[in-house]
């Protein structure tokens, strides 16, 4: 504060207009240079000056605002959609009660049935089945696409088909058919591009593509795609989806080995999540932060976040995730040398997965146990555990190439030639689950 009298708005406006009749321009300029308050107020007035000089503002002056015009086209569309929605419920109930192969017959007999609303109803049903029965979900989406092809409104048709193909990509991803999933996102994008207001759908399609690229292990592309999706969602002010896209970016960064950068993104997300009601995501991000800290060797923070994640999952009643957090906590215990506690946690996690029928997950935990037991040179117990892991994978329906790998491991442990590196190789081989990939384990201990 320079001790001078602060200038009034009138003085400052006169200064901006260089009106020497009202103010001494040089004197005001000198005073402002040493007074923050006046400088801030001058900044505001300069912004106002830019507004009043904007020709678009002046073009707006004669425009009569108030009651917006009625848009008959929107009303007609809204009315059509509402009507079709009611009819679609009826048609959907009839269709879903019959095998998919019979749907074309029904649709041929009911020529007014193929509507946008019916497509959306089928897509909704397919989305519900995505995780539980992805193959059935895909079949439903194929049926939805053939209905969509008969929707008469071209915009409605493109919108529906964009939605169908986006979800096809999701179903194909879950089924492990990644190349087809990627190509489905390209088809979906083509449909979204045909719609004037397709930008929001396009953002969702790009996000979906990111999830497919991630599954394919193409992490650099995943990061770029996730960033693109997050910028597009930000353009719609959709903070929740921005966070989901940034979470994908952070996971890919971590997988690519940029753990510290991944952690930085997770921490940013965690901050934003405090303003949002998305407990599921808050739990997932806490878990991811725990894993990042674990990889960076920050075990105290890792444990704190893993406990937070586990509590959040427990509140959500997400039992399988509670078990997964237990697995993470067990892994941290082992890393800090609390071996007995860690082994107990892992055994508990494996048993809990088995009890829920999540046999592949149980198999992975048992592989982790095998690795630790080998490190401790508990050969007999490691042999039993390797056998149990192989059995869990076999019961989960693992294919022949995986069974071969797991049998190799079991025999190596029983023959006391296995190493923790071999267990890690087998785990990576099983995780990748690529049929046709050669099984080339590291050389056993001689």
């Amino acid at each position, binding site marked *: 504060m320079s001790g001078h009298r602060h200038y009034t708005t009138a003085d400052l406006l006169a200064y901006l207009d260089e009106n020497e009749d009202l103010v001494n321009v040089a004197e005001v300029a000198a005073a402002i240079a040493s007074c923050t308050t006046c400088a801030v107020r001058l900044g505001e007035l300069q912004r106002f000056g830019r507004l009043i000089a904007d020709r678009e*503002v002046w073009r707006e002056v004669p425009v009569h605002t108030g009651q917006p015009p009625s848009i*008959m086209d929107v009303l007609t569309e809204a009315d059509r959609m509402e009507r079709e929605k009611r009819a679609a419920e009826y048609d959907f109930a009839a269709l879903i009660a019959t095998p998919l192969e019979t749907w074309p017959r029904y649709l041929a007999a009911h020529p007014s049935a193929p509507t946008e609303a019916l497509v959306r109803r089928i897509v909704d049903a397919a989305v519900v089945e995505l995780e539980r029965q992805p193959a059935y979900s895909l079949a439903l989406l194929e049926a939805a696409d053939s209905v969509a092809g008969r929707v008469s409104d071209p915009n409605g048709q493109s919108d529906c088909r964009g939605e169908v193909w986006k979800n096809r990509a999701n179903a194909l991803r879950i089924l492990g058919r990644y190349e087809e999933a990627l190509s489905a996102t390209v088809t979906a994008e083509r449909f979204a591009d045909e719609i004037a207001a397709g930008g929001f759908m396009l953002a969702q399609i790009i996000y979906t593509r990111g999830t497919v690229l991630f599954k394919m292990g193409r992490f650099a592309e995943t990061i770029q795609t996730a960033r693109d999706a997050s910028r597009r969602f930000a353009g719609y002010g959709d903070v929740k989806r921005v966070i989901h896209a940034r979470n994908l970016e952070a996971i890919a960064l971590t997988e690519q080995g940029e753990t510290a950068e991944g952690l930085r993104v997770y921490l940013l997300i965690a901050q934003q999540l405090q303003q949002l009601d998305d407990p599921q995501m808050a739990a997932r991000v806490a878990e991811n932060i725990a894993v990042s800290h674990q990889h960076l060797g920050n075990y105290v923070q890792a444990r704190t976040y893993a406990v937070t994640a586990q509590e959040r999952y427990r509140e959500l009643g997400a039992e399988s995730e509670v078990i997964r957090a237990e697995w993470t906590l067990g892994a941290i215990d082992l890393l800090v040398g609390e071996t007995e506690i860690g082994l107990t946690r892992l055994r508990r996690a494996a048993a809990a997965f088995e009890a829920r029928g999540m046999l592949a997950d149980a198999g992975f935990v048992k592989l982790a146990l095998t690795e630790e037991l080998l490190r401790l040179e508990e050969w007999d117990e490691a042999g039993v555990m390797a056998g149990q892991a192989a059995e869990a994978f076999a019961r989960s329906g693992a294919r022949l190439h995986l069974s071969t790998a797991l049998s190799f491991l079991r025999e190596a442990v029983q023959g006391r030639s296995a190493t923790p590196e071999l267990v890690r190789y087998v785990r990576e081989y099983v995780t990748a689950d690529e049929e046709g990939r050669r099984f080339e384990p590291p050389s056993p201990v001689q």
Partner: protein
Amino acid sequence: MPTETNAKPQLLPQRAEAAYRAHYDLLRFIVARRFKIPADEVCGVIHDVFVSFIRHEAKVAQSPADERAWLVGGVCNASRYYWRKHRGEELPADIEEYIDPTAVADDAIARLLLADVLRRLPARCRELLRKRYSEGYTPDEIATMESLARGSAKNLISKCLLAARAAFCRLRRTTA
């Protein structure tokens, strides 16, 4: 089977109707002024966005701020689409690909408020400000045009500017 009706449509779905009434002016301003879409195409662009809003309503967060941001994002995107369709990939130079819808909306609302303030000013005051700030005449030129003494023109412009600024601040406070 439900029967079809030929009755004339009367109302938008409730949420879309409320959003349309609340944000139409803002969206029109953005489409017409920021993206410079020809006047007879503005309604069409907004129409497309509202049809999309009705289609994807469930995916749009419920708070008024989220809803406004989604609609602003929607019209910005649809406006870009309009230009791509009419000019190929070459957009007008000042149209950016990524925007912050909250900043775009706040900026547009400020301009709409100022236009409203200017509309309500006495005609003589408004014309002086137009000449000075929109058309760029100097106070001397304005004095000649309006047959005023040089000093009077300057002082009159300053008073009008001050009145506009005060009214703008009042209006901003009441609409905040």
